């Protein structure tokens, strides 16, 4: 599968939060101003959102960005700890 702009280093809890709020993917897509396909890609981890979209999603769920998105680098090379 092609992962556009996603390298597997960022995980998110979008699906978990959406289900806990009993929202459909379309509801979430409408709320944060994207298409349903983008919500699907976000939940599958196939797409890393822009900073703006990440903020929109975290504000919608009323959580911080760090609560919604976790940076878990698979390759530590070149990263400052």
């Amino acid at each position: 599968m092609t992962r556009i702009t996603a390298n597997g280093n960022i995980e998110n809890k979008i699906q978990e939060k959406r289900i806990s709020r009993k929202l459909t993917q379309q509801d979430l897509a409408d709320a944060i101003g994207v298409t349903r396909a983008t919500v699907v890609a976000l939940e599958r981890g196939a797409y890393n959102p822009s900073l703006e979209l990440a903020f929109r999603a975290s504000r919608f769920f009323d959580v911080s960005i760090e609560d919604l998105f976790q940076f878990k680098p698979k390759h530590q090379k070149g990263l400052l700890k």
Partner: protein
Amino acid sequence: MKKFISWIQKYLVVASPVVLTMVVWSFFQSDSEIRAMNVPLITGLWEVMSWSLILWFACFVTFMVLLVFRKETQEATVKLIAGMKERDEREEVIMGLAARRSFVATTALTLFLLFASCLTLSVARLPDQTIDGKKSSLSIGFHFSGSDTGSHPSSDGKVTFEHHDLPISKTGILLMVLVWQLCSFRMSARKELREA
């Protein structure tokens, strides 16, 4: 300005059948033949179609200039070519990736065409003299010319195989590159959209 551009785009699409009809018609009858028929209806129709063609051509040139310089026209055309509406940032990313792939694919094709057009290859039999006991010669080289003069370096002796320049017309090459670029862009965009 927007209305004018919109009118140009609409006219280009709407008048296309007329232009195509005129092109096909001109294959069978020349302008002088049609005028010599002296049938007012046909001559009048031909006249109207001729003016439509002139207007269509003027619109086409204007549209091409807009396509080069106007950002909004570029964006709208790209969306039309890719068959995608760019509804959100993910689709914008996909379009960018498709454009990058299309650029590389077209550059590769153009480089290949440039290489093939410069390459000269010739296999010849040398009738009277032999070089180190061999009676044939193979020459490979490059011939670059800024203009199409039609002259190419020739081998001595009886040529059995010769390649120089591309066996496609200039129009054919331009059409091939255009179709290649449009297809590669559209296919890349579709593939990315399907898989991502």
